[in-house]
């Protein structure tokens, strides 16, 4: 990786969107080329700090984050350079935020961190898209980390992201022991956990059922001329005829049905 490239970062790339307004004034389209900001003039530990004129500011206005569509038309090299620009910017913001906290000051415009983070996330998304496209073309697979449905040690199904191990699965006697007949997965503790877990799920379901039924009763009481089909569509699990017959659904008037 040639890091000296970053000296002339983004000379040809469109103007950095993420740049403080103090340094970057776009007055007209014709002037854009003049005011292009070239990052990394100096390599120093002072890059961990903001520019000197922003030190005592209470309000530092910046632009927006990079959007996905803007990043999609950039080359891989440009994205790579931009990543490091953003990485440095984020480090700078973290440093300033920490110093502000130490000195019990307000950190001006903390949303800058979110904007940088959003840009970085977008870059990663774009790179991922390209990676997947390349792998699909070359190998027919996505090249992403494979995910498998497994039963974990507590007897629950789980999405497992596959990873590499020094020891092959069939040789790992310690791991497989817990899945044996007298292993951990069949132990009393796990069974008890599973029982209680199922009870919890059941209770949630029961409460939801009762809540819906009561709600439908109240609706029928307040709006007896309601569209029953719509009600049925909204609450498919509720027995509407039963709700109509109940005492709670009767309003203080002569029943219409």
């Amino acid at each position: 990786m040639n890091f000296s490239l970053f000296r002339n970062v983004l000379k040809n790339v469109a103007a950095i969107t993420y740049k403080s307004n103090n340094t970057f004034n776009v007055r007209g389209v014709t002037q854009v080329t003049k005011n292009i900001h070239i990052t990394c003039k100096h390599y120093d530990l002072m890059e961990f700090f903001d520019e000197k004129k922003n030190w005592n500011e209470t309000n530092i206005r910046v632009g927006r984050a990079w959007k996905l569509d803007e990043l999609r038309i950039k080359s891989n090299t440009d994205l790579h350079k931009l990543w490091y620009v953003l990485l440095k910017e984020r480090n700078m913001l973290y440093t300033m935020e920490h110093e502000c906290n130490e000195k019990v000051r307000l950190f001006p415009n903390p949303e800058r961190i979110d904007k940088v983070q959003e840009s970085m996330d977008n870059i990663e998304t774009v790179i991922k898209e390209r990676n997947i496209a390349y792998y699909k073309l070359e190998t027919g697979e996505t090249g992403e980390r494979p995910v498998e449905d497994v039963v974990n040690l507590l007897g629950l199904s789980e999405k497992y992201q596959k990873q590499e191990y020094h020891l092959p699965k069939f040789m790992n006697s310690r791991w497989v022991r817990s899945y044996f007949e007298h292993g951990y997965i069949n132990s009393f503790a796990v069974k008890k956990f599973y029982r209680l877990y199922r009870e919890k799920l059941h209770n949630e379901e029961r409460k939801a059922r009762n809540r819906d039924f009561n709600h439908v009763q109240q609706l029928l009481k307040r709006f007896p001329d309601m569209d029953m089909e719509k009600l049925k569509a909204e609450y498919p699990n509720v027995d509407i005829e039963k709700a109509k017959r109940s005492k709670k659904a009767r309003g203080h008037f002569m029943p219409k049905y």
Partner: protein
Amino acid sequence: MSTRWYPIYQRGNPQLRVFLPNFWMKLVKNEGKQQSNKVTFHCSMEMTKHDIKNYLEKIYNVPVAEVRTRIAMGRFRKDIGQGYVVKDDDVKFAYVTLPKDMKFEFPNIFEKKKGDSDDDMKSLDEAKKSFKNYIERNKDRSDVPSWFSI
């Protein structure tokens, strides 16, 4: 890396390379008095000494003589009001020694400049100005409550 995990290194494999590192580092003030070529950082928990050295040398172009790290456990404290126990995040400290001839002094960021008016006065002036603007805008409809306009 678009896939954020390291493959296991087997002997003879090519060197591991990270193309889009998401490590962060922040420069903090030294604790107590230190030599002028010592710098303290907080960094991502997963960074090793080699990572820190490479990070500073390759990305920031700062020569590094030595790196020492430690992990400080976050404090356990009681939440104010609720009373439950909260644990602050652990922090990884990196103590970096620069070469002998290099010096770094932590800048004084909140130094007051000469001729700078007080922050309080500034905000007061701003408030006065905005109130004046508000009065000016609503001259012809004095009976409309303040929350009504946009």
